[in-house]
């Protein structure tokens, strides 16, 4: 949150310093459990930082990536997280387009998750760079930005744009609530509409990043973008359901059950569509198996005795299948415990299916027929955990500061601390 504020300073007609200070004070105030959580995240970040330092000094040779499998765990996580970020629209659309007031109360948490996920996604690309010191080469003007030719250039634009949009919207809403007034719909509605389309675009562009490569037939499918978006609308809502329940437990932020139910239905329908898309791909790949199906063969059945990814993908599909069943059968979905299990299975299943289960087989076999298997090593896992730590810390701190404002407990000086949405519910 503190990252976002300086650029907003001129726009916001509010006691900015005080707002910042109040927010910081909230972040630094918490019970033992809060501090234990923050310390854990800081420890993760510290360890990840150390492993990243090793990678910086020795080069990417510290990872398990090779010239054959030239993208690995980092890009797998990146792909997953772009989807999570895009899924924030599953709150924004019903809240702002269909005027669901219950969802409107939690839409800010969706934006917060989107912001954390985009930052993580960007960090995963940065740690994957061989020369992060040259990242300024991407800046238009002083660098040379290959836009619109390069799909990676598109990704840089849409991810940063999405981050900015979400920061602007969240900041506007939260700063209004801080001053005890309602945000003016006509001010932020245009941004919301742009953000909704933008959310779809970030995942579409990320899919195009892969499907553009006609030399890698496993990625070169038109169904990729729809498939990415469908699976994003599984994992995003699943994470939100879990996160919102945690928030409800540890704070007095009102999370209506109707919101959870809405997300559960979105997740279920998306799971059904995702499995259908997977089936459609499997049929096309395997009915008449061409040379291009070798990656799919490697992933699902193994190739010439190489089968490192086979257990991964089948367990992912099993998890998604069980989650779909739980979601589809109403009495099962309505049991909170089962719903939570379905969410955990969905998150892990999608993380495998569009991470390791998607990025890696694009490189196996290589474009000229070599089979080099890949699994992440300790360095990659640690650096990745560090980035997850950063994302969770950003979410924690932002939510920590936002919740009392949303609840009406924290207000600008001179503003009556009434209108408590937490009390009305």
């Amino acid at each position, binding site marked *: 949150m503190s990252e976002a504020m300086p650029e907003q300073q001129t726009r916001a007609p509010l006691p900015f310093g005080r707002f910042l200070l109040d927010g910081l004070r909230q972040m630094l105030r918490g019970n033992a459990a809060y501090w234990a959580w923050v310390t854990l995240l800081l420890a993760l970040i510290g360890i990840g930082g150390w492993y990243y330092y090793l990678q910086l000094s020795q*080069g990417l*040779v510290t990872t398990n990536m090779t*010239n054959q499998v030239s993208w690995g765990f980092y890009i797998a996580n990146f792909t997953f997280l772009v989807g999570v970020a895009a899924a924030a629209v599953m709150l924004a659309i019903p809240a702002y387009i269909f005027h669901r007031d219950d969802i409107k109360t939690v839409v800010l948490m969706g934006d917060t998750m989107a912001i954390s996920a985009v930052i993580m996604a960007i960090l995963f690309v940065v740690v994957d*760079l*061989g020369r992060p010191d040259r990242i300024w080469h*991407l800046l238009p003007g002083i660098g040379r930005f290959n836009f619109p030719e*390069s799909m*990676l250039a598109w990704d840089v634009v849409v991810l940063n744009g999405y981050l900015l949009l979400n920061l602007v919207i969240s900041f506007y809403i939260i700063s209004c609530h801080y001053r005890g007034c309602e945000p003016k719909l006509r001010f932020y509605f245009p941004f919301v509409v742009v953000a909704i389309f933008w959310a779809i675009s970030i995942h579409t562009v990320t899919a195009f990043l892969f499907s553009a490569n006609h030399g*890698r037939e496993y990625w070169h499918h038109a169904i990729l973008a729809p498939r990415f978006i469908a699976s994003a609308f599984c994992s995003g809502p699943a994470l939100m359901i879990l996160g919102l329940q945690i928030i409800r437990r540890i704070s007095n932020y009102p999370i209506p059950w109707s919101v959870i139910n809405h997300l559960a239905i979105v997740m279920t329908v998306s799971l059904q569509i995702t499995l259908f898309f997977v089936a459609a791909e499997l049929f096309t790949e395997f009915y008449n198996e061409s040379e291009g199906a070798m990656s799919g063969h490697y992933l699902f059945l193994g190739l010439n005795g190489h089968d490192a990814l086979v257990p991964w993908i089948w367990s992912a599909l099993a998890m998604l299948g069980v989650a779909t069943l739980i979601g589809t059968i109403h009495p099962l979905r309505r049991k909170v415990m089962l719903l939570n299990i379905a969410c955990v299975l969905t998150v892990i299943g999608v993380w495998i299916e569009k991470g390791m289960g998607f990025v890696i087989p694009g490189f196996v076999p290589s*474009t000229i027929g070599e089979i080099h298997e890949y699994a992440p090593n300790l360095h990659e896992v640690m650096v990745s955990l560090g980035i997850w730590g950063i994302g969770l810390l950003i979410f924690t701190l932002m939510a920590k500061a936002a919740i009392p404002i949303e609840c009406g407990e924290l207000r600008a000086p001179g503003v009556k601390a009434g209108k408590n949405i937490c009390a009305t519910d």
Partner: protein
Amino acid sequence: MSDKSNDQRRDPGADPQPTDLARRRFLQRLGVTALAAGATASAPAWGGSTLGDAFADFFQDHYQRMDADEVKETLARIERKAKRRYGVDIDCKDTPAIPGVVFGYAINISKCRGYRDCVHACVEENNLSRDTQYIRVVEMHHGSLNLHEGDHYYQGTVPEPGKYYLPMQCMQCDNPPCVKACPVEATWMEQDGVVVVDYDWCIGCRYCMAACPYQARHFNWGDPDLPPGEINPDTHFLGNRPRPKGVVEKCHFCLQRTREGRMPACQEACPTGARIFGNLLDPNSEIRYVLENRAVFRLKEELGTEPKFWYFRDV
């Protein structure tokens, strides 16, 4: 002559922007300070100061945007760096493309015996890290052109009965997907049709490696393993100069040789005469003869990458 061809190489669209000029002036001042610092400091044998060089390295511009002076300073700095790092005096040049020349390659697969002399000559000529090879010779079964069935790591006596050998390297596509992929324009096709990399501009994202259908791009995962005693001192900015870690590199048809009228190292090393290299625009060249009189094929032609790298058989 060299100035003129320098101008030819320049990107006309990117030049006269005010921000660009301001930045260039800033960089020039920086260069001057760096040089002054080098002169006043302990003045090491190789000249120039490490700190100033590091600074100038960081701010080094894209090759296509450098003016003649900047290129000169950069080449000198590259030579100083090689001296510092390897203790070797290298000569780094940036010979421009010869007008009217587009290079192409044709391999006679009935002559190739799989000796891999080309592979090793390439490693030595191009100062490759000893764990990297631009050329891959694949041992193929007679009766099959399926790369997936070939042996990439064959050992023992060659040629083996029932086998033929298919050397692969960068195909220097005329429609290169790698160039499109690069988010910072660190790789491009030169006037002579060779796809090159500015090793000092590449950010190491490896998207070009994902885009290349021929596995022709190689990444420096760590510091290159380059024995100082084996360094080839005749180097080119876009070619075989020592590379930093964290950047992508690839075959460049031995620019340091071919732009001076010599043959690439792989062609010279081949003991069987399987390699035909030459100017595609010269109707009297040997490669044109091959293309006009033999049944030739290219790898993955269906992808539309238009490789300038052909294969043919005798008979």
